């Protein structure tokens, strides 16, 4: 399956609640202006420098944005392998590993953004992988570095380690009990920040949150990661406690919500991205609460398949918005029914 990034396998630790882990490291080439000020020739030079490292980058494949179709670029954004900013830059590129766990964005805000994305809670592993690619490249390309400030980045908020580690969490029980605001607000004292993600229009959907380090300097990377993991583990424990309380006091209502969503998603004929995200969120709740046995990986894949770009890639002809809703309903219901029939995928 071309649309499957490594994190979408959904098989990491705590994967019923922790959707994915990302660590990215920002680096700039010494002696070249940052992407915001460099000219076209310098931009092409940076891409050529990365392409010339094909030997050290092992199984990685460099693709230029200018050579990818709009649908291909959108699909990479939906798989979280590149940012929307990069997708819109004609002088950008990305190098992706064959297992789609590592993606190096070229000429985004910084020359290089080395990222590793893994399923579940795997912060140490993601850092080690990103750091290894950093070492490989550093042996070939001198990076902008300041003895006091550390690695230099276009924006001073990334300077120092250049590292941003983040974890995507699904927190329906904390949202349902109204405690999510309090829990997320408390993480600030640990130098972390929280952000709600996914959603469109006027309703909240998905119940997904991203927790990441706010501070990128003053501490070794390992310590930043340890802090983040400690806090994430506590949030996961809180979510589990609220899930337990929820199923203890209103088991029937929770089961109804889960199976109602399964019924809808297996039978709809028209399905928008938003509705899909909210149904998938309910089913994920059922998995986290041990109400139904489906793999978190299936839910990650459904979540990404619900997005317009990846969906469009699955079809041969180009679709308008209603045709997309038809196709989305068809693909998602088929995959869910298969999984329900055959046990786990």
């Amino acid at each position: 399956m071309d649309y499957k990034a490594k994190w979408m396998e959904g098989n990491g630790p705590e994967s019923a609640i922790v959707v994915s882990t990302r660590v990215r490291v920002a680096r700039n080439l010494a002696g070249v202006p940052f992407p915001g000020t460099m000219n076209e020739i310098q931009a092409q030079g940076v891409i050529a420098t990365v392409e010339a490292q094909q030997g050290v980058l092992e199984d990685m494949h460099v693709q230029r944005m200018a050579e990818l179709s709009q649908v291909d670029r959108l699909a990479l954004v939906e798989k979280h392998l590149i940012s929307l900013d990069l997708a819109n830059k004609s002088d950008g590129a990305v190098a992706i590993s064959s297992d789609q766990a590592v993606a190096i964005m070229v000429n985004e805000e910084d020359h290089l953004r080395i990222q590793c994305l893994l399923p579940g809670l795997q912060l140490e592993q993601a850092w080690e992988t990103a750091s290894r690619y950093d070492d490989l490249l550093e042996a070939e390309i001198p990076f902008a570095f300041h003895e006091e400030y550390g690695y230099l980045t276009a924006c001073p908020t990334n300077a120092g380690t250049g590292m941003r580690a983040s974890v995507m969490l699904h927190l329906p029980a904390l949202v349902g009990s109204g405690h999510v605001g309090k829990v997320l607000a408390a993480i600030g004292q640990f130098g972390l920040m929280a952000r709600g993600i996914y959603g469109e229009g006027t309703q909240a959907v998905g119940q997904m949150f991203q927790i990441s380090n706010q501070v990128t300097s003053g501490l070794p990377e390992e310590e930043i990661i340890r802090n983040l993991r400690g806090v994430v583990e506590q949030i996961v424990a809180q979510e589990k406690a609220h899930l337990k309380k929820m199923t203890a006091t209103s088991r029937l209502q929770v089961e109804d919500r889960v199976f109602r969503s399964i019924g809808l998603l297996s039978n709809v004929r028209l399905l928008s991205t938003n509705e899909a995200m909210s149904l998938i969120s309910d089913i994920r709740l059922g998995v986290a609460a041990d109400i139904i046995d489906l793999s978190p990986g299936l839910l990650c894949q459904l979540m990404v398949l619900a997005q317009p770009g990846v969906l469009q890639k699955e079809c041969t002809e180009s679709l308008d918005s209603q045709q997309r809703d038809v196709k989305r309903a068809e693909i998602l219901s088929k995959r869910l029914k298969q999984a329900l029939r055959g046990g786990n995928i």
Partner: protein
Amino acid sequence: MLCEECKAQQATVHYTQVVNGEKTEMHLCEDCAKARSDIDILGFPGTGFNINSLLAGLMNFEHGPTPAKLRAEACSTCGADYNRFTQSGRLGCADCYKTFAKQISPLLKRIHGTTAHHGKVPSKGAKEISRKRRLTNLKLEQRAAVESEQYEKAAELRDQIRKLELDGQ
């Protein structure tokens, strides 16, 4: 970044709220976020919200307007002036950190609590690999220059090679 409500504490909770199709972003401190139970948490994958773009506001907010003389001061390496930085929150090149050290240093301190990096540093091994590689390339170039009787160029390359060899000792 300071909390939008009390304007006193560091903002650590960032919300994107959409009401009737209008998007607003909120940046609150722990206390103010706790006090607001009505917050509807939403967001958009990959769009809009960016902590960096808010830097500019932070700088102006804390220091008042930047003096015109400083605004026009430009980095001699990349040509980007300080005004561009206050507006975009982005520096033009690595040398901008030196050009605007007086302003960047306190800013880094406000963002990270310190200016001193304690993490990974470019490894000696990596530097050595790249030095040797450059040396090999320069020697090849030097030989080619001699063969094509470009003696001036060859002499220049010889000096570069000597310098690189000294770096390794």
